[in-house]
């Protein structure tokens, strides 16, 4: 902001001088750059304005996050210098470059590239997540639509929702007798609550006006669902979906640490056993970045399916 106002003053001075020195110049061209837009300005002005706009953009949007990251790196470097065995940013970066130079190698089932680990984790999250959507969204609709069902489900949901999804892992292992389905089961449990609850809240919040329209037009239940409930609930559902995917991605690391196999969670545990601390730090960044991308992806999907 300050950059712009500074430049504006400069131009004002300049054009003022121009008016004094060269009175034969048409007055309009002198006045215009002051009043409105860059395009209306006299020839030398646009360059300055464009530069100012870019400077403003850089100053307001690019600079703060860059400073933030630099401060973070500085703290990290300081702490690592004082702590034995904790690698600093430079060492971690070098290790990351080496790690990502060949992300998809397969030496043996217990030694696969980082890319495979990420993909395997994503596959588990996706499977559990899709299953949760298939179960959770219709359940949310039913609970939101019928008070009886809502009262029926309320005690179960309030009882089970606060339980850490990892507590369900032994049950999964017992029922499915395998690690992989048990991990998917944990993701399912994690993702299903936000989907049920947000969908149900959305359905129960459909304005009475719309339901009155449905009643007066005597719409069938199918039309009510497709023409009124679904479009209205979509934003709520997408919030549920976003919360679910965020939580699922949080939980997969812990679940895989317990179940083993190929996946980012077990990879972290494996690297701890190898005392390869650089890789653990890299894994933290990977988990963060992938989580961020998943969230952004769903924000895009949500925008696509919102009626506003």
């Amino acid at each position, binding site marked *: 902001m300050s950059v712009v106002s500074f430049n504006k003053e400069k131009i004002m001075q300049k054009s003022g001088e121009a008016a004094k020195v060269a009175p034969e110049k048409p007055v309009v061209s002198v006045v215009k750059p002051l009043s409105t837009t860059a395009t209306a300005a006299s020839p030398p002005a646009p360059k300055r304005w464009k530069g100012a706009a870019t400077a403003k953009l850089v100053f307001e949007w690019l600079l703060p996050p860059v400073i933030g990251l630099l401060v973070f790196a500085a703290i990290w470097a300081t702490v690592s210098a004082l702590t034995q065995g904790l690698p600093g940013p430079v060492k971690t970066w070098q290790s990351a470059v080496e790690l990502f130079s060949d992300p998809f190698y397969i030496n043996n089932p217990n030694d696969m590239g980082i890319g495979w680990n990420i993909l395997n984790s994503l596959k588990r999250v996706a499977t559990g997540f899709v299953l949760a959507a298939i179960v959770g969204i219709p359940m949310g609709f039913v609970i939101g639509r019928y008070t009886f069902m809502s009262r029926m489900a309320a005690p179960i949901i309030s009882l089970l929702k606060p339980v850490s999804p990892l507590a369900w892992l032994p049950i999964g292992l017992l029922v499915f007798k395998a690690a992989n389905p048990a991990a998917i089961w944990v993701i399912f449990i994690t993702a299903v609550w936000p989907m049920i609850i947000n969908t149900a809240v959305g359905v129960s919040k459909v304005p009475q*006006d*719309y339901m*009155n*329209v449905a*009643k*007066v*037009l*005597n*719409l*069938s239940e199918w*039309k009510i669902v497709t*023409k*009124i409930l679904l*479009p*209205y609930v979509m934003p709520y559902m997408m919030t549920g979906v976003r919360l679910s995917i965020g939580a699922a991605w949080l939980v997969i690391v812990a679940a895989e640490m317990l179940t083993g196999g190929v996946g980012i969670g077990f990879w972290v545990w494996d690297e701890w056993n190898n005392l390869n601390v650089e890789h653990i730090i890299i894994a933290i960044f990977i988990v963060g970045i992938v989580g961020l991308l998943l969230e952004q992806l769903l924000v895009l999907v949500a925008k696509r399916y919102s*009626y*506003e």
Partner: protein
Amino acid sequence: MTTNVMQDRYVLIENVNMTFHTKKGSFQALKDINLNIREGEFISIIGHSGCGKSTVLNLIAGLLQPSEGYLFCAGREISKPGPERAVVFQNHSLLPWLTCFENVYLAVERVFGENEGPTQLAERTRAALELVGLSHAMEKRPNEISGGMKQRVGIARALAMEPKVLLLDEPFGALDALTRASLQDELMSIMARSGCTAVMVTHDVDEAVLLSDRIVMMTNGPAATIGEILEVDLPRPRKRLELVEDPSYTHLRSEVLKFLYERHAKKAA
């Protein structure tokens, strides 16, 4: 004989009481409501806010059930909403994710879908939107058009169902004075052509006198009832500008005003 009785008592409200049970206790909104509406008649219900005039409309619509008493439409008891009683809502209540065309089509499809194909249904929808002068805005969504246009779509949706009774709940309340006047004129000519019965809730005295055959004036709640019924015997078609000078119009207008502000003045809340 029977047909005459039917025509004179097309919509019949008999000894209706309405009590709402809320968490704070029960509240009697309406008491001893009795009203006959003739076929083709235009009735206005006027009263101060909170007097239960919208409740009367919702009872006729079938959105509410009376605590006591009965309501009939064309000789049949009103037990639930039906397409023969179309409602124009105060806040238009269009579905924001559907275009104007789709909003009207939804109603048309429900009423005529069993006997007619998609081409005929689309034709009905177009005709209804044309009637309210919105042929150019059919593919627009409600948030892309003005308040007056939204209310026109609401009217088109109701008329497209070819209802026996049109129920209007303060249809022009949220509009500016100029838009309101032009929509009132349009509604008058549409009603003259269709000949359907109408019940309109309003708080606008001029609107009530201009449009109605009879004005039902309600006392203040709680336990509101019908205070007086005023016959509006002005000849049709009525012209807004000519009426302003008309002494009988001025007289009717002052009758309503006297009822509202002398005999049943509402204490400032």
